[in-house]
């Protein structure tokens, strides 16, 4: 039988002295608050990171293969589609899909406005699943459509600035010697919410881009590869580079192509860590105070147990167990509140964000069971380890003095 635990249970469940009871409630509340804040912060940060990176990867794929002489905003270098990796790389474990693309910079001109833009051509291997979800009006179309005027998808931000809607015709000037002009019909308006990208890109059939570039149907700007698990992105990028890439080609992950946005996402982790650390400190300070008061209010019991031959470590165990019960209660309550609030946010989107700055309208929530388990176990373990220090107060209680008072 674990006598220390038996004693703990009895005193924890019994009517505690008034001040202890109050302090225990404060400590439970503090732990619950810490856990709540940690869970919400963690769920929001990872929800935010996942939501935004999902958008980026959904639109651009994870790894891009292109001629390293190509620079965004200028004329891309042609790359032949006859590559050993196309489309065979789809058989590589971890690779989901590969598709071609071709870019061409141009200028949209309406009656009153002009706007620079990159027209992005997609082929018949284009995976429209992500884009379909982003459509605000109209709909996506397949490559190979021969209607005239040619179809194009523009972003919501371009449409707003140029005051365009689905069904309108637009004229786009392409910078060539001499300049070339093409008329397009807006087949749909998309919005990923990633403003920087949205305002720059329009999408059309790759055949038009090839023709404008005087390329054959076998030439593209490059390839976009989608992988199964974003966690492996760097490893996959490296593997693809090593196994398939030669000549002028380079395979880069979206993280390498857009370091700014991913660094910014990474930066959110620091906010999260700061919150986690602060909340752990709050929990520890409250628990240490609570433990000291529990001990001080029970010096008589400590003294009596010592006269009966209880060692300091035995008595300390009683109080550490007691602290454990308090932390556990706080953790349970904190999880209920934290997960509950996160659920409400994911369900009803109570917290809203400015989409221009954060790319999302509603603060997204992501539940990671591993993270939540780590928070719970971390708080429990850290608290109990730190509490070993104040529990030394037990050895300062002299049995003789404790017995004297009554």
């Amino acid at each position, binding site marked *: 039988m674990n*006598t220390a635990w038996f004693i703990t249970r*009895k005193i924890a469940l*019994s009517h505690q002295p008034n001040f202890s009871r109050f302090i225990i409630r404060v400590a439970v509340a503090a732990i619950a608050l810490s856990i709540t804040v940690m869970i919400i912060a963690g769920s929001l940060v990872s929800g935010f990171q996942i939501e935004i990176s999902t958008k980026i990867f959904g639109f651009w794929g994870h790894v891009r293969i292109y001629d390293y002489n190509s620079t965004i905003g200028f004329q891309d270098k042609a790359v032949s589609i006859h590559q050993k990796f196309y489309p065979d790389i789809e058989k590589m474990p971890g690779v989901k899909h590969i598709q071609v693309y071709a870019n061409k910079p141009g200028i949209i001109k309406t009656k009153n406005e002009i706007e620079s833009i990159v027209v992005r051509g997609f082929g018949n291997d284009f995976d429209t699943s992500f884009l379909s979800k982003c459509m605000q009006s109209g709909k996506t179309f397949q490559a190979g459509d021969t209607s005239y005027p040619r179809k194009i998808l523009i972003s919501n931000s371009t449409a707003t600035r140029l005051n365009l809607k689905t069904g309108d015709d637009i004229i786009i000037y392409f910078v060539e010697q001499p300049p070339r002009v093409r008329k397009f019909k807006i087949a749909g308006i998309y919005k990923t919410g990633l403003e920087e990208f949205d305002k720059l890109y329009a999408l059309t059939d790759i055949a038009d881009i090839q023709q404008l570039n005087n390329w054959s149907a076998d030439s593209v700007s490059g390839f976009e590869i989608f992988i199964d698990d974003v966690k492996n992105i760097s490893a996959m990028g490296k593997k693809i580079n090593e196994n398939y890439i030669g000549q002028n080609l380079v395979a880069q992950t979206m993280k390498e192509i857009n370091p700014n946005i991913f660094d910014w996402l990474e930066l959110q982790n620091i906010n999260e860590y700061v919150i986690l650390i602060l909340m752990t400190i709050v929990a520890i300070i409250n628990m240490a105070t609570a433990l000291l008061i529990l001990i001080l209010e029970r010096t008589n019991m400590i003294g009596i*147990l010592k006269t009966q*031959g209880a060692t*300091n470590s035995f008595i300390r165990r009683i109080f550490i167990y007691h602290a454990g019960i308090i932390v556990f209660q706080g953790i349970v309550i904190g999880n209920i509140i934290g997960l509950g609030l996160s659920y409400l946010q994911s369900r009803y989107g109570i917290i809203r964000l400015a989409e221009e700055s954060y790319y999302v309208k509603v603060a997204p929530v992501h539940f990671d069971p591993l993270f939540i388990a780590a928070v719970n176990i971390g708080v429990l373990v850290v608290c109990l380890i730190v509490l070993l220090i104040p529990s030394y107060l037990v050895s300062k209680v002299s049995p*003789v003095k404790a017995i004297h008072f*009554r």
Partner: protein
Amino acid sequence: MIQAVNVSKAYGDIQVLKGISLRIDKGEVVSIVGASGAGKSTLLHIIGLLDRPDGGEVIIDDNNLANMSDKDLSSFRNKHIGFVFQFHHLLPEFTALENVCIPGWIGKRNDNEVKEQAKELLDYLGLKERFNHKPSQLSGGEQQRVAVARALINHPKVVLADEPSGNLDSDNARELHELFFRLRKEFYQTFVIVTHNEELAKLADREVIIRDGRLY
């Protein structure tokens, strides 16, 4: 069996014990008397290993306790010494039975064995109907008898009692004193009793008096 050799103890400037030597044999009931503040409790605490003397030593069954670590002293106290104080000092959250069992459990003895013995003891002390009562539900005499049972649970070499009947009315006090002698007679239990009660002091096999830090 128990020997205090030239024990001295000071609190600040006050020299409470000035070289006290005392020998207690198995089965003896020794009473310690003296004026208030004479150092009776202090001596009892030192014999009971709750306090260490400044000088001199305590020897129990050839164990010199001066060199023992706190942990070993605790274990020794648990196995071999029982205390009864003026106040019962029972833990209020626990039943009479549990209070009696706790020293046995602290000593990591078998749970059932301890419980059985605790029941026998309480029964012997006339508390058969009180096993599951909390201390607050017991009378002063009953509380003190539970405390005696608790002191006896680990079959100590000696029970050290510090004014055990100091808080009891004369009937209850007499009953408690008779109990001590019955335990001595039937179980050969050794007692050292600090008391202001002259009746009890006279009943003891030996009465020692502390005055000016010395024994007489």
